[in-house]
């Protein structure tokens, strides 16, 4: 066996990949070989560490040195200084780890990680997701072994029920109860499915889990199969996650090779196998019945319930469908017990939740906090505050199905019921932070635009209702709105919520209703004064040349694609409003800062 005195872990998640971690990895390989260190230093590609804002991320063990924003040009220095001579390269370390006196803080003491509790993400950043042995090293497949050899299906379900785990896909339905319903259904065949479609814009929790720890999902699905009486599992993963698809494929193959999937697992007579099904870009296929229709090869359209999937799902058979993050929690609950899990979190929301912090926040990335952590801690402590020191305006949770939380909600402990009561929802975990430069009307319009495009068209409230909502919002952002439009938005929104067939339609008015509620003044301003205080609604703004600053250099006029600027040489110029297409080219070219938006 090789003895490696040091491990170099390079993040291979999509985030770091897009900032160049593949190059960093290959440069490490070359440098290690150049310095003849390949037998002493192990180079490993891992999953997401969570601090995506400072990627590519590299961690060197045993010291636990956390290098951030590593470029391939930095690699030779890390190899020669740290790996060869044992001196950490402090100027490349994540800045929050270095004290003023140059002493290095341990990673779990930095602001970003201090309040986090990485349970679902326990293996992300720790193991090589393409190596099943590393998953096994950290107790992988022990839970499956325990369940198959020492517990009955019913006992397994009782543990999950007692833990208080609720669905992490957004709705928060008690997981144990869902398993029980599916177990009780009588049929010759049942299925277990995993919803890895993750359609919410800005959400990447499931992506990081699948890329960083795919085996935890496989193990949990096998446990679920045993508990409910199913022998076949499907993971419905969106095709827009190629790295996740690849890693899942490798994981399934490795599990099959070790007889951890397939026939007669652990010699107990239990058969279970998993297949992948790729999504093709439809947001609605994240909805459970549409997802199942898609697995069957049909167009992704939801259907009325009852019958619920627990009784009639894929191919008409009882089906259990859970989200990726829900599954990621299962093995630990089996191994450490229901009491351990329920000791974390709030009374009705147990455990932790993974959030994807995005938007105008400093520490963009993935975090996992116990339920009950409040928004202030998430945004200002873990998140590092608003970018460029601007003022916090709102945080959108739950994607296109959720609503906005504002300053008055900052002390709110995060859990399913609190967020719903505040007019938003937990959703899958996307948190988009907005500052004073974001227009809430434009935000609502953006989400409606998304849901209208993704509507399957089956039911009238969603197909036609949302379209009318979008048209009204567009009218308002273009300065043609009326006060009547505002009350129409509210009443129409409520009707759609009550009558749409599936979750997509039922929740699509949420961003509108929530922003109307919390930012009514901004809407009124758009309608009565035709102004957008955040200067985002371009249609209502004009570009204006300040005659005092303009030198008549004619640069703007030369670059204007619409020939909308007139003026004589060396005399102040003017923009013709009717011709101006508000592209902003003139403003970007002007060397005298003479052009402003009003």
């Amino acid at each position, binding site marked *: *066996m*090789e*003895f*490696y*005195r*040091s*491990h170099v*872990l390079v993040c291979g998640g999509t985030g770091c990949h897009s900032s160049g971690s593949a190059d960093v990895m290959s440069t490490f390989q070359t440098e290690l070989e150049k310095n003849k260190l390949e*037998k*002493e230093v*192990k180079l490993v590609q891992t999953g997401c560490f969570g601090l995506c804002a400072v990627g590519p991320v590299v961690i060197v*063990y*045993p*010291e636990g040195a956390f290098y951030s924003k590593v470029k391939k040009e930095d690699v030779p220095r890390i190899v020669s200084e740290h790996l*060869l*001579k*044992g*001196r950490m390269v402090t100027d490349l370390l994540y800045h929050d780890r270095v004290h003023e006196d140059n002493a290095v803080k341990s990673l779990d003491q930095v602001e970003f990680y201090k309040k986090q509790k990485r349970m679902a993400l326990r293996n992300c950043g*720790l*193991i090589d997701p393409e190596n099943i*042995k*590393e998953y*096994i*090293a*950290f*107790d*992988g*497949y*022990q839970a499956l*072994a325990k369940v198959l*050899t020492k517990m009955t299906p019913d006992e397994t379900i009782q543990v999950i029920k007692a833990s208080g785990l609720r669905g992490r896909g957004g709705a928060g339905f008690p997981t144990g109860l869902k398993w029980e319903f599916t177990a009780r259904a009588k049929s010759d065949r049942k299925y277990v499915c995993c919803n890895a479609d993750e359609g919410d814009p800005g959400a990447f929790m499931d992506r990081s889990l699948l890329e960083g720890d795919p085996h935890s999902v496989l193990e949990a699905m096998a446990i679920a199969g045993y508990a409910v009486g199913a022998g076949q599992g499907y993971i419905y993963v969106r095709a827009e996650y190629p790295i996740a698809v690849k890693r899942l494929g490798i994981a399934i193959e490795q599990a099959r090779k*070790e*007889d*951890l999937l397939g026939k*007669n697992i*652990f*010699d107990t007579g239990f058969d279970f196998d998993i297949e992948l099904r790729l999504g093709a870009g439809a947001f609605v296929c994240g909805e459970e019945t549409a997802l199942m229709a898609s697995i069957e090869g049909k167009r992704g359209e939801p259907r009325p319930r009852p019958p619920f999937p627990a009784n009639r799902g894929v191919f008409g058979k009882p089906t259990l469908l859970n989200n990726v993050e829900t599954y990621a929690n299962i093995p630990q609950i089996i191994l450490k017990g229901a009491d351990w899990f329920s000791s974390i979190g709030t009374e009705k929301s147990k455990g932790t939740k993974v959030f994807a912090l995005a938007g105008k926040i400093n520490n963009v990335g993935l975090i996992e906090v116990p339920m009950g952590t409040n928004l202030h801690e998430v945004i200002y402590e873990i998140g590092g505050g608003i970018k460029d020191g601007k003022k916090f305006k709102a945080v959108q949770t739950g994607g296109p199905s959720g609503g906005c939380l504002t300053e008055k909600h900052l002390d709110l402990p995060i859990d399913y019921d609190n967020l719903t009561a505040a007019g938003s929802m937990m959703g899958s975990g996307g948190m988009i932070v907005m500052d004073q430069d974001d227009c809430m009307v434009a935000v609502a319009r953006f989400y409606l635009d998304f849901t209208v495009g993704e509507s399957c068209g089956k039911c009238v409230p969603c197909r036609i209702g949302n379209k009318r909502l979008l048209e009204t919002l567009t009218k308002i952002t273009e300065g043609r709105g009326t006060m009547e439009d505002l009350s129409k938005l509210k009443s129409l929104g409520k009707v759609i919520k009550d009558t749409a067939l599936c979750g997509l339609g039922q929740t699509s008015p949420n961003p509108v209703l929530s922003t109307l509620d919390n930012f009514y003044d901004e809407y009124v301003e758009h309608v009565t004064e035709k102004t957008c205080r955040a200067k985002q609604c371009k249609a209502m703004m004009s570009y204006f040349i300040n005659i005092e600053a303009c030198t008549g250099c004619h640069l703007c006029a030369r670059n204007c694609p619409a020939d909308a600027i007139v003026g004589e040489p060396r005399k102040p110029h003017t923009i013709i409003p009717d011709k101006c297409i508000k592209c902003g080219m003139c403003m970007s070219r002007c060397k005298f800062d003479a052009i402003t938006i009003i």
Partner: protein
Amino acid sequence: MKSLEELEEVRQKALDSVKLRKSRAGTRIVVGMATCGIAAGARPVLLSFLDEIKKRNLGDVIVSQTGCMGTCRLEPMVEVYRPGEEKVTYVKMTADKVKRVVTEHIANGHPVIEYTIGSAE
């Protein structure tokens, strides 16, 4: 794998190769790799430690480097920390001396007194 025993075997073996990412317990062997150490020949000493540990399949051992410890005339120097024991400092180490240190001290818990700093005085 078809049984719990097999799973456990794989786990133990695999754990040895990734443990250094998690735990800080176990034996730490720290080799002085400052300029004085490198000049005196610390690298062959380091490589010899890695070799011996690999040969004996010792688990729970971390080998790392450090800077100048001060007594440059005694380099190459190696410090050994074992849980619950006092630190032992070896001086004027060579690749050959490493073999004895690993066999007697690391594997069996008996420090090689004649190689330590105390004996060099």
